[in-house]
């Protein structure tokens, strides 16, 4: 792998996404610039509809190219992704860039077992046979503290709870040691008890394999727990980018202040929660 040669594993510069509709051309995101360094976590914060997911989808080249145009450059490990054809992209997705979706229930096909989908992912990127792939899957699931992986592989997605499915997804994402993990609201659909567990596993993957993580969330709690750097998005633009400590201590932009205030209104009257 080339990982060590490029300290910036992901570089997004001058990203613009436009969508063509009956009412003309609309801009979804504009002037997006950021870099992700090995083993670092960049938090992307903003309200729903501000373009967080569009940004992640354009990195993965998953947007419909008939209606949407992506301008700018997206470089992963020294390779330009924007404009790559589907066949090439398919080799990168899942291997170099892993994607963890918000809703684990919708991320799996309900008609195949977890094992089928897990092993398919491994086999499509490696030369391993089914038996080896199964072993890797079991090991990866052990790694995220899933109980009895052998049995779990035979289950269908709907037989597992959301928290467990999300951990399965993290296991799938991590088993090929990707350079970049895009985690789009990884804990939003989970309950609080699972939230921290999932975040811990995500961090474990990061520290062990040196994966860089683009962590998308509207929850400032998640960001404050995880991020090194934070980019605040509003209406398709990054309005502020700063170190996580700096952002929480001295927010510069009005919108950042508004976000931080929205958080404290939610539970302003108790100090105990700070030290939990």
């Amino acid at each position, binding site marked *: 792998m080339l990982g060590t040669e490029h300290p910036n594993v992901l570089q997004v510069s001058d990203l613009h996404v436009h969508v063509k509709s009956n009412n003309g051309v609309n801009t979804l995101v504009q002037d997006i610039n950021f870099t992700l360094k090995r083993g670092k976590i960049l938090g992307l914060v903003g*309200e*729903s*509809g501000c373009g967080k997911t569009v940004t992640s989808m354009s990195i993965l080249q998953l947007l419909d190219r008939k209606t949407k145009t992506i301008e700018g450059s997206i470089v992963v490990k020294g390779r330009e992704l924007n404009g790559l054809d589907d066949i090439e992209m398919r080799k990168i997705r899942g291997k170099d860039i892993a994607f963890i979706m918000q809703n684990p229930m919708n991320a799996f096909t309900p008609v195949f077992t977890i094992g089928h989908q897990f092993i398919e992912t491994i086999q499509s990127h490696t030369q391993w046979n089914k038996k080896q792939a199964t072993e890797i899957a079991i090991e990866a699931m052990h790694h995220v503290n899933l109980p009895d992986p052998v049995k779990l592989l035979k289950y269908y997605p709907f037989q597992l*709870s*959301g*928290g467990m499915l999300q951990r399965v997804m993290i296991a799938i994402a991590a088993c090929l040691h990707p350079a970049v993990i895009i985690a789009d609201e990884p804990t*939003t*659909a*989970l*309950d*609080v*008890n*699972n*939230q*921290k567990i999932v*975040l*811990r596993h995500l*961090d474990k993957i990061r*520290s062990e394999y040196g994966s860089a993580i683009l962590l998308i969330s*509207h*929850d*400032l*709690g*998640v960001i*404050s*727990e*995880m*991020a090194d750097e934070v980019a605040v998005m509003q209406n398709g633009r990054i309005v502020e980018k700063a*170190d*996580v*400590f*700096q952002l*929480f*201590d*001295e927010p510069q932009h009005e919108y950042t202040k*508004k*976000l931080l205030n*929205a*958080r*404290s*209104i*939610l*539970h302003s009257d*108790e100090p*105990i*929660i*700070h*030290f*939990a």
Partner: protein
Amino acid sequence: MSLLQVKEVTHSYGSRSIFNWKDRSKKVLSDISLSIEEGTCLGLLGRSGAGKSTLGKVILGLERPQNGQILFQGHDIYTADNHTRKKIRRDLQVVFQDSYSSVNPRMTAERIIAEPLENYEKLTVAEQKRTIIELLERVGLSEEDLKKYPHEYSGGQLQRINIARAISLKPKLIVLDECVSSLDMVTQTLILELLRELKEDFGLSYFFITHDIKSAYTISDTLGVLEKGELVELYGSKNQFFTSEHPVVKEMRGSILSEHPRYRSVRTREKHPKSV
């Protein structure tokens, strides 16, 4: 007399057939007793799978419990005659988490809100329209939103429509089942604010089901904690949650995400620059 009394409710799911002598059913609620006073909000905390939503359904009259009673203003909702039941239905409303699946995608906002009015109130066309507009304005939308379809709204706006529908008959109790969990932070704050206002204005009572400690704390007067179908704690005052020594509650407190990166606990291995 309390508005709602839940008395020793026990419920289980699963198959029991005459060929299966072993009882394979899964107990989801065991011996739950609680009550909600008029004009107050009872928050119910618990992780996923604890039985929170089942209890919500039991209270709404959607799931007949195997044992126990639900008394709404002194009437058992499962044994009441049809006339009383219809009256109870009117006073008992619900808002679910997933705003999109709780509305008919082929109905406009006007028709969505009109449905309960048509069932219970005998209003003229003009009166009904006026009521709907008033309701829309009450929840922070405007007259222009009357003719829009669900897909034209954001999640937060649609949740407002769900709330408008729930308050349209001036109910006594609203079951809020994770009603803010899928919204972003800013919207969450706004919806919670709206719910609090409505509670004051109409003297509503809420049964607020959530896994999010912060939002439960914001809106509730009393708090209960459900774990594996058992009501492990029930507090007369929500602040007791922060002093309780019960292991389940302690674990829940431990899973609250930090407010500021200074207090973070997920990523502790690396040193971070000391903030100002």
